[in-house]
């Protein structure tokens, strides 16, 4: 694949996944939390049936950065762990695969709470 094409596909695939999310927000009464849950579970499902892997190879970060990619990583982790360790892999594989992202998010939250002063949401409306 040409160098720049990776970026183009990442943009198109990632953009499309977000656009679908926006359609769900605007056309249904789904709350953002429900949309995120739907995305993660869909990612697990698509990963399980083997559709997401080829899509991710093709779209790169366009497939892995959206939350469906998070679901896909969970499914992939569980599959590898089950193949390696048997049934216990059901419980260990998911978090193993996503440990980096989740722990990074928790630590960032803690650090941010230590460092930042709270924002002023009203500021953006008037400035």
């Amino acid at each position, binding site marked *: 694949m040409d160098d720049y094409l*990776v*970026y183009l596909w*990442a*943009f*198109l*695939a*990632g*953009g*499309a*996944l*977000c*656009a*679908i*999310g*926006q359609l769900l*927000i*605007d056309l249904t009464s789904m709350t953002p*939390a429900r*949309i*995120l*849950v739907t995305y993660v*579970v869909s990612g*697990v499902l698509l*990963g*399980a049936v083997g559709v997401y892997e080829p899509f991710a190879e093709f779209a*790169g*970060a*366009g497939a*892995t*950065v*959206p*939350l469906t990619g*998070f*679901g896909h990583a*969970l*499914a992939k*982790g*569980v*599959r590898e762990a*089950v193949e390696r360790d048997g*049934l216990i*892999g*059901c419980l260990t*594989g998911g978090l193993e695969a996503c440990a*980096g*992202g989740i722990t*990074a*998010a*928790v630590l*960032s*939250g*803690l*650090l*941010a*709470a230590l*460092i930042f002063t*709270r*924002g002023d*949401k009203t500021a*953006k409306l008037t400035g």
Partner: protein
Amino acid sequence: MKLTKNEYGRLAKLRSPNSKIYRNVPMAFLVGGLICVVGQVLTELYKAAGAEEELAGTLTSVSLVALSAVLTGMGLYSRLAKYAGAGTLVPITGFANAVVSPALEFRTEGYVPGVGAKIFTIAGPVIVYGLAASAVYGVILFIAQMSGAV
């Protein structure tokens, strides 16, 4: 009141302006796409620096999470989200924002009952149902392997 609840519901719907889909969807596409491009750039950089595919992916996630945390702390992520909608919600940066923003907000109630307890108020369901779905998949996979179907 001359209207029934149903009739009033219809009238209320008629009078309620709809979301501007023609503006929201392209914005979500643009911003969400660009965040993924940033992810791709980071992945390529980590790979060029010698990281393997999987490690590069993890490093990318961690970097995006950190970037989102900084933007959230500065109050910039919510400003972008006002225009981008799902474009900032769906990428992993949105997940990070959902973790960091309650941590910041509830600091006034202390680090344990505030930050610690509230940090997953928004993002918790994602982890709960993601893990549950993956565990179910694992069990099915295991049974399939045992029975020799795979």
